[in-house]
């Protein structure tokens, strides 16, 4: 069917800020969708609150609204833009939910807006537990048996009926507290009795347990003519029980016979047809490893993380095709954009193995609950492509940047077998490494299978990798073994370690033997058709398919997996860099390994190499392509960290030189340079041992800020107030102190924090703007609310910042982007905290709000253009009249046991933008866009540290003025009461009182919690619980009085104060 001509304007809903479970994959999907719709001639209006996305670039849609994804704002936009149709199935759960809300509120009806893609009815059928169950029963697809029971006897009866094992899930307990697996009646009686007691409604769900089943996913598509295809099937290495987002996943399935594949394919297609979805859909199934029994676990009636993975794994652009289907085109009339010689109604055939490995944030949250289960915890993922599983797995491992290039962690080397078994048993995130280590220590496949239910196929493959390892150990410099190791994905660096020699020596020996990788194409058809996709992966085979063109070319390194501190912002800059290079006529080549992002969409660059970002893998590409040079400044610390090794191998770094990068990153050179430039910085020194650190701290005076050099997102950074804490920090937080990686000890200055991003071409420094942080110094810039234009900085301070920036830009010979963090103390003295010789997290935000495409300009500067010739002059650009606020977004509810208190270590996963005419309005938008419930009345719970009591009192008074009730813990309460406030004192946690502090939060009696941490760490435990319970109950908890004051300002601006006449003075 041809495309619809009765609709002209389409509203596309984005997915908002990045949180665990909903990340960059929706930038990829959304960008594709908008582009795809515009290709077909539709006018596209976009709403998304996430500024750090390519999707919200003004070139992607005809009208881009960076506004909160709420009913209130979406309705306004609909009323203003009057779209004919709305497309929400490409904006994740957020997008779908908003469409449902708009429909239920009658807005879509009122403005006559049609829902495209998946109909509301289908969404409900897929998401409503009961409706889903009914649909499955109707079409005869099996789902795990379950029922609700109120007594132990009912539970036992039901279990006897459906058979053990069963899962007990108590109703309305948080995070499944009190539930568990029961293998027999005795266990069931125990668990059910406990569960019923814990459930506030005395109810438990008894469900047939499918833990240990194989978890299989199907990515399917359907069009309005009922054509339906499987794009890709995938097998989770980890069986049912671990969220697929946290599982290692391979594509296609590896341990299924054709009959099983066919059976699950038919089930998936039946489901998408029954739901009448027009677009993409993800079906998750559980397959009994011992029979043909299977169950449908879940259906996502939209594009998802898995569909992004499937798109990158097969080359088939699901979101792009889904958008075309949504406007009426059918699969058999859309040309497959990969081959350009076949149709989109083709089930991709792949001739390689894809491995996805999740990236967890536990390097930043070592105290978090690391057990994997049904709640996703990974912040990002890597994908790798190989010609066998071993190769794909090892490529994925070294893409992770978890300080290992192989199936081994140094930390696990000294574990006993029992410790390893324990890690494996509890589904720890390091389990795959623990399995390998246990095998090294002699564990056999059968016992590991019994423990993990990971299919023997995968365990054999791990054993195979280890056998190669052993063979290598016994035969140093053996050519045939080297060949075998390379075919199975071993890195030169791994082999070098086994052979106890230098990586370069292995590389030289390898090349001498003619062992260089070839590049194969990802073409959706396993070579059956001639294909035009410039999408490649490396492998050790015979025929190379990637040829060097005679155009001038530049290689751009991506930023790898998304993690806290290095998010989608870096992908944004990478994509801009690539686009600019192409506009300038260069052949732009991308190397990256993140399947979620826009930069790994093969249509973005002239050539895409989907490879790990290690020096070996990058050099393989560079050896073939012989580019003019490599750009590292947009790929975050991942790319920057490769610079010196690339230079060592004779590669030219385009833009800021390696020496200048080092000058900014090496503490001593940095300090010397700032002194030479007469730029002020907090006093500080570096230490390589504990005693030296203590002496430095004494010399410059506490509090001090301590951190390892070369850090990412403030990892392991801490503010230390007394010597004892410093010693503790040195002993625990820092695992490896060495001369290569010393510890920085700086004077901690209390003051306002602000930052700039700037561009320098060697002659001119252009500063688009200064961003001021709401929270005072001490909270990581990535976790602070940033405001532009800076609301409280005087002209004198601004001038000083501009002057410093210009001096630094020239002094460090920056070519391209750089970022500087400043601190301004009470006397308006400006200090430079840190200089980053690269693109930063704030570049997309600042680019969008100042309308200066920074990465674009920086790329031009890197390639030799002069900013003056582009119409820029040195200094700061004119400030905008509108106020823009960037608010951090956290994923605390998903990471149990993580302390939500903000500090120098970054914790946020994403960001939202709010903009309006006044600061308060912009703040309001930013905060609600970030997911904070802004209540204009209610109660506020205060529990503040002694040193904050005075400020806390002022804050409490503000809240009290516009009618908020004040709840407080005893100490804080007494203080506030002494100063004339009426306070409800809540009981301590240790009191099992109905009104103890945790219950007050749980019962939703308070709208906000203000909790500041005491310097004395020992009393922190109660505070920790308060913060966790707030996070889990979605009650905003502010750990900085600055954030709380900002909220107060918003409430103030939006409500009326009531003050007694008696209190008026004078």
């Amino acid at each position, binding site marked *: 069917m041809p495309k619809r001509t009765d609709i002209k304007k389409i509203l596309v809903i984005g997915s908002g800020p990045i949180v665990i479970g909903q990340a960059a994959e929706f930038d990829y999907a959304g960008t594709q969708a908008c582009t795809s719709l515009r290709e077909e001639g539709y006018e596209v209006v976009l709403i998304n609150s996430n500024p750090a996305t390519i999707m919200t670039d003004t070139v992607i849609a005809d009208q881009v609204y960076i506004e909160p994804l709420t009913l209130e704002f979406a309705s306004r936009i609909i009323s203003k833009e009057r779209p004919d149709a709305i497309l929400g199935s490409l904006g994740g759960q957020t997008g779908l939910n908003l469409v449902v809300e708009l429909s239920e509120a009658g807005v879509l009806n009122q403005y006559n807006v049609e829902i495209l893609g998946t109909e509301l009815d289908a969404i409900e059928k897929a998401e409503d537990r009961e409706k889903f169950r009914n649909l499955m029963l109707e079409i005869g697809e099996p789902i795990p048996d379950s029922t609700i029971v109120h007594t132990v006897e009912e539970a036992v009866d039901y279990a006897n009926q459906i058979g053990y094992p069963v899962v007990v899930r108590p109703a309305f307990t948080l995070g499944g507290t009190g539930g568990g697996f029961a293998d027999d009646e005795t266990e069931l009686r125990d668990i059910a009795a406990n569960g019923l007691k814990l459930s506030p409604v005395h109810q438990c769900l008894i469900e047939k347990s499918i833990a240990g089943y194989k978890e299989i996913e199907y990515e399917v598509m359907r069009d309005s*003519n*009922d*054509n339906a*295809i*499987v794009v890709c099937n995938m097998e989770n290495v980890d069986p049912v029980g671990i969220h697929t987002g946290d599982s290692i996943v391979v594509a*296609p*399935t*590896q*341990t*299924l*016979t*054709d*009959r099983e*594949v*066919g059976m699950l*394919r038919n089930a998936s297609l039946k489901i998408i047809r029954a739901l009448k979805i027009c677009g993409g859909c993800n079906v998750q199934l559980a397959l009994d*490893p*011992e*029979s043909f029994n299977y169950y449908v676990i879940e259906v996502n009636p939209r594009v998802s993380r898995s569909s992004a993975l499937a798109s990158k794994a097969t080359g088939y652009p699901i979101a792009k095709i889904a958008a075309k289907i949504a406007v009426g085109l059918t*699969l*058999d009339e859309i040309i497959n954009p990969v081959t350009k*010689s*076949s*149709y989109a*109604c*083709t*089930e991709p*055939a*792949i*001739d*390689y*193995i894809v491995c996805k490995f999740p990236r967890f944030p536990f390097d930043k949250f070592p105290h978090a609950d690391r057990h994997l289960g049904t709640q996703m915890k990974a912040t990002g993922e890597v994908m790798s492509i190989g*010609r*066998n*599983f071993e190769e794909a797995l090892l490529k994925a491992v070294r893409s992770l940047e978890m300080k290992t290039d192989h199936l081994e962690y140094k930390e696990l080397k000294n574990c006993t077998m029992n410790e390893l078994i324990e890690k494996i048993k509890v589904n720890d995130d390091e389990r795959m490494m623990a399995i390998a280590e246990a095998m090294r220590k002699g564990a056999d496949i059968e016992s590991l299978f019994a423990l993990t239910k990971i*299919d*023997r*196929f995968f365990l*054999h493959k791990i054993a195979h990798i280890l056998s190669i390892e052993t063979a290598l150990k016994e035969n140093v410099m053996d050519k045939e073994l080297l060949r075998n190791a390379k075919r199975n994905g071993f890195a030169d660096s791994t082999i070098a370690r086994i052979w106890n020699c230098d990586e370069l020596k292995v590389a030289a020996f390898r090349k001498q033997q003619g062992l260089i990788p070839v590049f*194969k194409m990802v073409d959706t*058809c*396993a*070579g*059956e*058709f*001639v294909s035009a996709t410039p999408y490649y992966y490396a492998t050790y*085979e*015979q*025929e190379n*398919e990637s040829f060097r063109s005679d155009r001038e070319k530049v290689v751009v390194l991506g930023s790898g997996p998304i993690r806290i501190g290095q998010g989608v912002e870096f992908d944004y800059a990478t994509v801009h860099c690539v686009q600019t290079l192409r506009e300038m006529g260069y052949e732009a080549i991308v190397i990256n390994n993140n399947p979620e992002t826009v930069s790994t969409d093969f249509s973005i660059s002239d050539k895409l190499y989907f490879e790990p970002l290690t020096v070996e893998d990058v050099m393989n590409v560079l050896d073939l392509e012989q580019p003019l040079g490599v750009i590292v400044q947009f790929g975050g610390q991942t790319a920057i960290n490769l610079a010196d090794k690339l230079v060592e191998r004779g590669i030219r770094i385009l833009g800021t030189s390696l020496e200048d990068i080092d000058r900014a990153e090496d503490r001593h050179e940095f300090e010397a340079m700032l002194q030479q430039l007469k730029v002020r910085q907090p006093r500080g020194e570096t230490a390589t041992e504990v005693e030296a650190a203590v002496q430095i701290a004494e010399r410059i005076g506490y509090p001090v800020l301590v951190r390892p050099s070369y850090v990412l997102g403030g990892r392991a950074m801490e503010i230390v107030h007394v010597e004892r804490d410093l010693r503790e920090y040195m002993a625990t937080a820092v695992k490896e102190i060495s001369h290569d990686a010393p510890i920085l000890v700086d004077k901690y200055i209390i003051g306002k924090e602000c930052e700039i991003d700037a561009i320098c071409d060697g002659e001119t420094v252009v500063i688009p703007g200064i961003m001021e942080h709401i929270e005072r110094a001490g909270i990581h810039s990535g976790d602070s609310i940033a405001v532009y234009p800076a609301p409280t900085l005087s002209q004198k301070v601004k001038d000083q910042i501009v002057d410093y920036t210009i001096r630094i830009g020239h002094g460090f010979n920056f070519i391209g982007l750089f970022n500087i963090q400043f601190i301004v103390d009470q006397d308006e003295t400006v200090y430079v905290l840190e200089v980053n010789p690269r693109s930063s997290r704030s570049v997309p935000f600042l680019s969008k709000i100042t309308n200066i495409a920074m990465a674009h300009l920086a790329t031009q500067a890197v390639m030799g253009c002069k900013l003056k010739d582009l119409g820029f002059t040195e200094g700061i650009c004119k400030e905008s009249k509108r106020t823009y606020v960037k608010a951090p977004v956290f994923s605390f509810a998903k990471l149990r046991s993580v302390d939500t208190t903000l500090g120098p270590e970054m914790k946020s996963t994403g960001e939202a933008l709010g903009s309006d005419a006044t600061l308060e309005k912009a703040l309001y938008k930013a905060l609600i866009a970030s997911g904070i419930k802004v209540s204009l009345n209610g109660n506020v719970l205060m529990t503040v540290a002694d040193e904050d009591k005075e400020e806390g009192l002022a804050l409490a008074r503000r809240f009290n003025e516009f009618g908020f009730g004040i709840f407080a813990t005893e100490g804080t309460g007494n203080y506030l009461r002494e100063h004339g406030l009426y306070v409800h004192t809540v009981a301590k946690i240790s009191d099992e009182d109905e009104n103890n502090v945790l219950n007050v939060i749980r019962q939703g009696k308070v709208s906000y919690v203000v909790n500041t941490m005491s310097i004395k760490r020992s009393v922190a435990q109660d505070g920790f619980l308060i913060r966790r319970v707030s996070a889990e109950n979605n009650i905003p908890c502010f750990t900085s009085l600055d954030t709380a004051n900002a909220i107060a300002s918003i409430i103030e601006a939006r409500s009326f104060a009531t003050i007694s006449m008696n209190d008026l003075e004078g």
Partner: protein
Amino acid sequence: MKRYLVLEDGCVFEGTAIGSDEFKTGELIFTNAMSGYQEMLTDSAYCGQIIVCTFPMIGNVGINRDDFESMIPMLYGLVLSECCDEGSNFRCDQSLNEFMKQKKIPGIAGVDTRAIVRKIRDEGVMKAGFCDDEKQLEAMKAELKQSTLEKRLSARVTTPRPFPIPNRGHKLVLVDFGCKYGVIRELSERDCDVLVVPCTSSIDEIMAFRPEGIVLSSGPGDPADCTEAIEMIKACQNTAMLGIGLGAEVMALAAGIKVSKMKSGHHGSSIPVRNHQNNRIEFTSQNHGYEIDKELPADCELLYSALNDGSVEGFKRNHQMGVCFNPEGAPGNSECSYLFDEFLDLLKERGIKNA
């Protein structure tokens, strides 16, 4: 142990020996099915052919006792990127390599299968053979150039004598050109009372059973070699017929339609075809190296065509229909197994008419 795959054009690929060490010269073709190697290996339509699997890891689920498509595999070899030693599946009985040794199927692993596939794609299918002795390579190349591929392959794989698959439903004769068990499963599921006959059977031998309809199975080789069957079909214009794969091609020849060899053929488990009855796209399992001419005579109706290259995948002439794909799937999709129902419906209708 080292083994070489030698191609007609002189190309040599070095790899590791798997399976048997008894070699025959065959026609090198490729399939892009990602699962179902056991079904492919035992599909008699691959007789005389050496299969390159585009999927690089084969053998993962071993071999089981259920998924055979014939008793004796007739293919001449298997070319793999990697052969998995440890089959892992609850039904796995033995490893692929063991099975290949047992059934005398030679093979090679560790070669760049994608390079070979691209070669066949661009240059067409070609002759190939295995060689274990490096010194014999030149002789092998020369021999390959001169050799001709065997003819009348279906006559080799067909049943030597008729045998019944007794049931109580429609009486059918199944002409065995190299029939897959899948077809028999589909017919038995529908309670058909089937007599399987050799593909060289005459019209009299077939009609003696007084079938309500005739099914022509898939099979290997050139349809033009099936001279007896072509004559038989010409003489049976009044009988309802369902031709599958080679069976459909033979039907086409009998109807005077040209059938020609394709460059690289259609081998795969999920090939999209357009159903011209409802204009929908269906996914089919295919294994054919010949195509039916697009210029169909006036009395023929186009039923199916391949979405990507437009080749004829199915036609109908009166009450006889032929499809080039395998509606029984195995390996791959059996989305089109409704064809068996349609065929039986046709028999029913005719039965009512004749009564």
